[in-house]
C-alpha cells in the first residue's frame, strides 16, 4: 500500500483550477521529489495532504487523497491526520517559545507530562536533526535567536516530535546556505528509513541527490513520475525533458 495516494484529485482557488486530475502515489520509506515551475501547484499539492490548504480563502477540492488507505476527508479528526502527516514550510518558522518548547509544542498538546519523557523527546528529536550539540546548552533560550538553517532543522524536529509517518517539506532549503542544506539533505536521507518523505524543490541537483523518485508537475497537471535517475536521464515527455535540461523554470 502506498503511504499517500492521490485519486482523480483536483483543486480550485475560487473558480480557477490549480491541480487537475492528479493520480499519484507516494511510497513509504522513500523520498519523492516534486519539481515544476513556479506557480504550477506544488505547495497546493502538499498543503492539500495535511488539509492546511483549506485555511486559504476560496480553496476547494474534488476527488480523493488517501493516507495509508484512509481518505483524508473521512479521518476521525484533523488532529489525527496532521499527527500522521508532518509538514515543514519554505520560511523557517520558530514559534515564539524556547528551543525546548518548540520541540515539545506538539507532545505537550498530546498529553505528555512526565518530565523525563519530555527531556527524552527533546534530546531525541534534536539529535535526529543534528541540532542537539549546537543548542544543548541553551534549550531554554528563545528559538528566535537561532540562525535560519538552525530554525529549519528545529522545524523538522518539531514535526518529528509528534511521530508522523509522512513528512512533507516545501522548499525547505531555499533560504539556507550550502552547509545547512547539506545537513538537511543528509538528515532527510536518514529519516527516509522510517518515513514517507515528499520534498518540493526548485533545486534540480537536490532532487537528484536525495530523492528515490521524482514527479514533474506543469500547470497543475502531473506530467511524469519516475525513479529519479530515469526521470533525469531519459524522461518520457518532451516537457519534462525541457524542464530538466533547464529550458524553462
Amino acid at each position, binding site marked *: 500500500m502506498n503511504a499517500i495516494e492521490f485519486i482523480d484529485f483536483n483543486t480550485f482557488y475560487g473558480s480557477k483550477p490549480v491541480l487537475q486530475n492528479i493520480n499519484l502515489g507516494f511510497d513509504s520509506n522513500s523520498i519523492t521529489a516534486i519539481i515544476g515551475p513556479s506557480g504550477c501547484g506544488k505547495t497546493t499539492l502538499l498543503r492539500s495532504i495535511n488539509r492546511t490548504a483549506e485555511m486559504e480563502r476560496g480553496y476547494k477540492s474534488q476527488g480523493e487523497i488517501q493516507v495509508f488507505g484512509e481518505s483524508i476527508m473521512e479521518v476521525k479528526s484533523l488532529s489525527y491526520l*496532521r499527527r500522521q502527516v508532518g509538514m515543514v514550510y519554505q520560511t523557517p518558522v520558530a514559534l*515564539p517559545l524556547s528551543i525546548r518548547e518548540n520541540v515539545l*509544542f506538539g507532545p505537550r498538546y498530546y498529553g505528555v507530562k512526565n518530565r523525563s519523557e519530555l527531556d527524552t523527546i527533546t534530546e531525541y528529536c534534536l539529535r535526529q536533526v543534528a541540532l542537539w550539540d549546537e543548542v544543548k546548552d541553551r534549550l531554554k533560550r528563545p528559538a528566535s535567536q537561532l540562525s535560519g538553517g538552525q530554525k529549519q532543522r528545529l522545524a523538522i524536529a518539531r514535526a518529528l516530535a509528534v511521530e508522523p509517518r509522512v513528512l512533507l517539506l516545501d522548499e525547505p532549503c531555499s533560504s539556507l546556505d550550502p552547509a545547512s542544506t547539506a545537513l538537511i539533505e543528509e538528515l532527510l536521507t536518514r529519516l527516509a528509513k522510517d518515513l514517507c518523505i515528499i520534498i518540493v524543490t526548485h533545486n534540480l541537483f537536490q532532487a537528484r541527490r536525495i530523492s528515490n523518485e521524482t514527479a514533474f508537475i506543469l500547470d497543475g497537471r502531473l506530467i511524469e513520475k519516475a525513479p529519479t535517475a530515469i526521470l533525469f536521464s531519459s524522461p518520457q515527455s518532451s516537457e519534462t525533458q525541457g524542464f530538466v535540461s533547464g529550458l524553462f523554470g
Partner: protein
Amino acid sequence: MKRTLMDRLQMACFWVSGLFILLVLLSIIGYLIWRGGPFINSEFIMSSPSGFPLGTEGGIFPAIKGTLWLILLALIMSIIPGLLTAIYLSEYGRQGQLPVIINLLVQSMAGVPSIITGLFVYALGVVTLGWGISLLAGGLALAIMVFPVIVISSRDALLAVDDNYRLVANSLGVSRSYTLFRVILPRAAAGILAGWLLALGYAAGATAPIMVTAAAIIASSSGALLEPVMALPYHLYILFNEHISMNHAYATALVLLGLLLFINVLALSLQSLQERINSH
C-alpha cells in the same frame, strides 16, 4: 534638484505642523499648571469638597475615587466580551459573512455618540431595572462606550501576530485554543493591554455618558454599585458651569489631565513594546 526641494518643503511642513500640535498641547498643560497648580496639595487630593456653595473649599478625593471606580468597572464589564469578539474575528471568523457583519456592527458602535449610549443606559438600567443613578449604570454606559475600542485594538493586535505561527501550529494537529493560549495571546499581550489602557483613558475623560447615569454633585464614592458617585470630569463641569470656583476647576482639570497623560504614556510604551515584539 526639484525633487529634493519638494522633499524638503514637505519635511518642513511636517515639522511645522508637529511643532504646532506640540505647542497647543504644551500651552494647555502650561496654562492648567499656571492656573490650577498652586491649588493642588495633599489636602486638595485627599479631602472631600466642602464650603458653600459646595466645592469652594476642600478637595476632590471622592471624585478621584469615583472616576477610578467607574473606569475599573467599565473595563471589567467590557474586556471579556471585547476580547472574545476580537478572538473570534482574528482566529475563527476569517471566512464567511458573520465576521463582516460583526466588524460592521463594532464599527457602527464606535460611531454612536456617547450621550446616546448614556441615555440608553439611563432608560434601561437607571429607570427600567431600577438601579437609579449609580456606579453600576455609569460603569455599564462607559463599558458600552469603550467596547468597540477594545474589540478593534485587541483584534488588530491579534491579527498582527505572524500567520506562519498559526500555520505551523495547525500543521501539528493541535487545537486552535491551544495555539491561542500558548502562542497567539502571549505574542499579542502587550498590544491588547495597550488597548485596555487606551480604553481606560477614554472612559476616564468621558463626561456625557456618566452625567445621566452615575454622577452626583456630592457622594462618598465608596464603590457601592447602586450608589451614585462623583467623577472628575463631571465635578469639573459643575465647578466651571456654576462658577463655583475657577481655581478648583483648573486644579481638578490638571489632576484629570495628569491621570489621562499617565494612562496614555503607559499605553504608548506598551504599544511600542508590541511593535518591537512584532518586528522580531
